[in-house]
């Protein structure tokens, strides 16, 4: 065992990937056995959660060991490509397809050696770093979840939200536009409810999903071919679906889960098209093999339009997964999931998978597609940031912030800042996980209060949470020497260099620069509203309490990472980041070095924007008692509160037509009148059901009438037999004659 691991240390990663899968399988088995064999229902156990935590911790240990081993690998130090590949990558045939035996004459000759779907892994700097990040953050979040989900260990859990929503209007986002009751603004006091919804605690199920997610995500990261990435891609998607809909009794959660799933399908269709194009053009799905054919410009077997289509398709997949415009609307709704899920899946790892894929397949994108990526990112980061300015739900602010930061990463990749984009991915994962877990701690401490308008002054009650969240806020705002500064500085620098070379694309630098200020503003606003000033809701404040150590410990660790993960020497030089240097190593050779640009100018402007944003927020919200957005919102504010009317637009353009078509199809399929009495005949000639019922009822009627022939009288049978024989004889004779 140890010998194989030393000979091929890449297998460390395989083991680390399979550990969460093993935990998932064990939990699933145990749950099934318990459901089948045990008494009808017991209190949810904690054992499964500890198992998942142990598996994740072991994965993290292996991931970090793997990273250290990789960086100190002798083959790596001497840049021996083949030796490195031999030790850090493997591939086996998974399914053989289209095998042609050349000895058989007449078998069609294949132009490409597309013979097998492969399974394989390949470790490079990007993979190793991402793997370590995912496992470490994942472990911390699982640890946090032990505390956050403690309520789920009760035999019965009361879900007030279900009752509240049962009495409130359904949000118009998905098809429920036929009620006339007025909408319930977010955070408005719920109407008094006569019922109390109870359900069983789901402690184990949560960790089951987390384990499956961890496996899928790690599989996605270490995979060396597009198909395996796609498998992981879909698996994380379905885990996201499960976890967003964790409280599936709430209509909003069920709708959000469906929305996320459908939105992702739109993107995945593009991804699938890209995979098929790659398969037919290159005959392999191995990313490295495909990329190597691009070494000297676009390869001859791929026509230029197909190249564009493949790039757009791949990027469409990334747009869906990373919640870029115009498929971004699912991510804010995904905040219906429990907060640790938002931190792990919808901030740190899964949504970054799109960015990772763009980075991984960088060589496959035509210059035009890259420009499209840059503009998508730029527009997304700006739009999402403006929406985040006015949100009052603490998690939604963070959700739009995530969309915005993902836009930064896409922008960086689009303008050629490969290292900048992926560095921002890594640093963002840490500080956004920190911010989400901090928000989770606030929500937990305030007994599931998410509305910023009812918080305030919480710093006195929740010291650790407030301090760690401040670190996160400063990091995302781009305060010098914190991790976010290094990455954002590089992103802006890449954008500036691009805009410098091609002045017509100046917007690609201006938008992120302005957004840097907006980012600082809304993050500072969030922190001031939650933690400073006088309490705006006495009830919430009085019952608020600091979270248990099992939840604050991950916060502290993540805060430490958020500060120092990108440090290098000298620390005041944004380019000296050690993490950035490591990423530089696995930069695809086709990428031109995105140096140049006026570094001081970009950094200085960004710092100025961030400082003014932060200052403005402090001026407006620090120590103020005013509740933001009191009174009816004005024009621009309403525009932002409605999130640029994207949901309304999609509702009109896609959802309502789909619902209408469904209704029509339903009318065609069902009886037009819903008669209550069980009619004997349900034949209605005008509908599909009517026809099908007519066929069935005709057969039944034939059977009913034919059974009278079966009299049971032997003599009758014989008579019929004889007469039939005679008749047939007569017919035959007549025909022959």
């Amino acid at each position, binding site marked *: 065992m140890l010998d194989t691991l030393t000979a091929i240390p890449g297998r460390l990663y395989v083991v680390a990937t399979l550990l969460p899968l093993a935990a998932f399988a064990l939990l699933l088995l145990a749950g099934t056995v318990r459901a089948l064999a045990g008494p009808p229902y017991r209190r949810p156990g904690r054992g499964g959660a500890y198992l998942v935590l142990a598996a994740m911790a072991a994965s993290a240990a292996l991931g970090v060991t793997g990273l250290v081993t990789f960086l100190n690998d002798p083959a790596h130090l001497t840049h021996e490509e083949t030796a490195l590949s031999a030790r850090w990558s493997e591939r086996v045939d998974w399914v053989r397809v289209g095998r042609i035996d050349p000895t058989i004459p007449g078998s069609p000759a294949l132009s490409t050696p597309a013979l097998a779907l492969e399974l394989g892994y390949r470790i490079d700097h990007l993979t190793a770093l991402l793997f370590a990040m995912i496992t470490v953050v994942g472990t911390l979040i699982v640890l946090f979840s032990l505390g956050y989900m403690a309520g789920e260990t009760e035999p019965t859990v009361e879900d007030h939200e279900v009752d509240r929503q049962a009495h409130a209007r359904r949000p118009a986002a998905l098809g429920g536009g036929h009620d006339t009751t007025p909408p319930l603004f977010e955070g408005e006091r719920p109407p008094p409810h006569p019922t109390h919804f109870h359900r069983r605690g789901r402690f184990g199920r949560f960790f089951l999903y987390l384990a499956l997610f961890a496996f899928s995500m790690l599989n996605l990261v270490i995979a060396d071919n597009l198909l395996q990435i796609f498998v992981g891609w879909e698996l994380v998607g379905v885990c996201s679906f499960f976890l967003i809909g964790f409280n599936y009794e709430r209509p909003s959660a069920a709708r959000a889960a469906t929305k996320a799933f459908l939105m992702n399908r739109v993107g995945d269709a593009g991804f699938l098209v890209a995979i098929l194009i790659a398969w037919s053009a290159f005959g392999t799905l191995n990313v490295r093999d495909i990329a190597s054919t691009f070494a000297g410009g676009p390869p001859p077997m791929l026509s230029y339009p197909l190249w564009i289509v493949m790039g757009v398709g791949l990027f469409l997949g990334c747009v869906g997964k990373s919640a870029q415009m115009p498929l971004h609307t699912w991510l804010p709704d995904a905040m219906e999931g429990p907060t640790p899920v938002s931190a792990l899946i919808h901030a740190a790892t899964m949504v970054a998978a799109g960015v990772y894929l763009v980075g991984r397949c960088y060589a496959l994108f035509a210059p035009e597609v890259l420009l499209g990526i840059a503009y998508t990112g730029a527009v997304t980061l700006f739009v999402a940031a403006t929406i985040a300015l006015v949100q009052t739900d603490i998690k939604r602010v963070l959700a739009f912030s995530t969309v915005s930061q993902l836009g930064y990463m896409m922008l960086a990749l689009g303008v050629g800042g490969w290292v900048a984009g992926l560095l921002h991915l890594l640093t963002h994962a840490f500080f956004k996980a920190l911010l989400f877990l901090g928000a989770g701690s606030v929500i937990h401490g305030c007994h599931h209060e998410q509305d910023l308008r009812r918080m305030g002054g919480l710093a006195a009650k929740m010291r650790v949470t407030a301090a760690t969240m401040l670190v996160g806020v400063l990091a995302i705002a781009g305060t010098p020497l914190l991790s976010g500064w290094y990455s954002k500085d590089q992103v802006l620098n890449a954008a500036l260099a691009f805009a410098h070379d091609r002045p017509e694309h100046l917007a690609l630098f201006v938008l992120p620069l302005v957004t840097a200020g907006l980012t600082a503003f809304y993050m500072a606003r969030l922190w001031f509203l939650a933690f400073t000033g006088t309490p705006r809701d006495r009830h919430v404040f009085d019952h608020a309490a600091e979270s248990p150590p099992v939840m604050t410990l991950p916060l502290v660790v993540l805060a430490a990472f958020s500060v120092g993960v990108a440090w290098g020497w000298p620390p005041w030089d944004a380019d000296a980041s050690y993490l950035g240097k490591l990423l530089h190593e696995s930069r695809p050779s086709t990428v031109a070095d995105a140096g140049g640009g006026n570094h001081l100018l970009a950094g200085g402007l960004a710092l100025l924007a961030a400082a003014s944003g932060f200052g403005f927020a402090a001026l407006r919200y620090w120590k103020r008692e005013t509740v933001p957005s009191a009174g009816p919102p004005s024009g621009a504010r309403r525009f932002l509160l409605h999130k640029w009317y994207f949901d309304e637009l999609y509702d009109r353009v896609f959802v309502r037509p789909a619902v209408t078509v469904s209704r029509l199809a339903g009318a065609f399929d069902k009886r037009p009148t819903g008669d209550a009495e069980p009619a004997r005949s349900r034949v209605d000639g005008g509908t599909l059901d009517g026809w099908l019922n007519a066929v069935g009822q005709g057969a039944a009627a034939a059977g009913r009438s034919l*059974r009278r*022939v*079966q*009299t*049971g*009288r*032997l*003599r009758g049978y014989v*008579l019929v037999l*004889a007469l039939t024989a005679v008749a047939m004889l007569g017919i035959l004779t007549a025909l022959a004659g």
Partner: protein
Amino acid sequence: MSELGPTPFLILAAFLFACGVVCVAAKRNAIGILMGVELVLNAANLNLVTFARFDPRFRLEGQVFALLVVVLAAAEAAVALAIVLNFYNTHTTVDVDDGNELKG
């Protein structure tokens, strides 16, 4: 003898067959039905030996099959009589019209 063609034999066989069928169809007594079946079988047998005699192509086959039918009729009678006995045990009659339990 040699001037007699196959026709009279075939007519006789057809007549026997018709008798057998009428007997099976008309009788209510199970034993009577069995006798009718025997008649039908023997009508077929008569056909077989007739063709064996008058058609040189079936010289051997006709006789062999006639023997086969005789054996078959014996077996059939044995089985059918067992059924009739059982029928009698359960219904205390051999009237086949009483055996209508499988009526649809």
